[in-house]
């Protein structure tokens, strides 16, 4: 028992790491794309826990908001849109798996809470203080990342915004109905 208490951080890391790998294996072996997506969602949450353990609190929040909130919804939309052949309607809603979903949600919440607790209590490691400092003043991790992002990495930040714009235009172009066929049809009508 003493061993468990003394090495709780290590044991917790191995537990979360094992759950992360389990989720990743689920992504590549699941036959149903919806199951793959749920396993991927699980992996995203576990990676967020690992981020918190390494004092990347902002990254963990971004991981949950952008990946779990944004990208996963996009994936699920496309899975529904693409009308996959081997995806029967009754399999889409996972009604039989509802208890499992509840257990998974509670487990994610518990693991995130323990991760936050460990991350804030045991501030160790060689450079953890530098991850939440602005000019030797202790601030939050978010403020520290913001200061670095908008000073030292300002130009890459602007370049990335162009990348996002290009991706947006590209997605719109791909998502349009076939423009050649449409214009050809319009000419025929005239």
């Amino acid at each position: 028992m003493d061993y468990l208490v003394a090495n709780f951080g290590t044991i917790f890391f191995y537990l979360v790491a094992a759950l992360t790998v389990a989720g990743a294996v689920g992504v590549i072996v699941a036959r149903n794309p919806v199951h793959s997506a749920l396993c991927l969602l699980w992996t995203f949450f576990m990676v967020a826990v690992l981020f918190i353990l390494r004092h990347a609190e902002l990254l963990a929040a971004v991981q949950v908001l952008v990946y779990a909130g944004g990208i996963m919804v996009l994936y699920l939309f496309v899975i529904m849109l693409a009308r996959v052949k081997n995806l029967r309607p009754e399999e889409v809603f996972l009604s039989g798996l509802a208890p499992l979903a509840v257990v998974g949600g509670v487990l994610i919440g518990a693991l995130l809470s323990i991760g936050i607790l460990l991350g804030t209590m045991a501030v160790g490691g060689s450079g953890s203080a530098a991850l939440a400092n602005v000019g030797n003043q202790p601030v939050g991790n978010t403020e520290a990342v913001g200061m670095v992002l908008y000073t030292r990495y300002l130009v890459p930040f602007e370049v990335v915004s162009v990348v996002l714009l290009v991706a947006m235009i590209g997605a719109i172009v791909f998502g349009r109905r076939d423009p050649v066929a449409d214009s050809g049809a319009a000419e025929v009508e005239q």
Partner: protein
Amino acid sequence: MITATHYVALSLILFCLGLIGVMVRRNFITVLMSLELMFNAVNLNLIAFSFRLGDLGGQVLAIFVITVAAAEAAIGLGLIIALVRLKDTIALDEADVMRS
């Protein structure tokens, strides 16, 4: 004590799983999800070394990686929609329109 080595090992496993998924799966959507796994492995590495070196640059770079992953997801899913419209399938080996 958990060191950067532990994180690099986990990141290696995640990356290899993602790589396997990209190479063996036929389903386009699952392939894209495996790509996301690989992005996550890269992020884990960046965060681990950011902590190890006490440098915030790793965390900022991870934010950029997440941005690029979001762009990749948008483009990839647009491609899936286009492929479904063209061939009515999401099996990658059926996407052979440009094969001579």
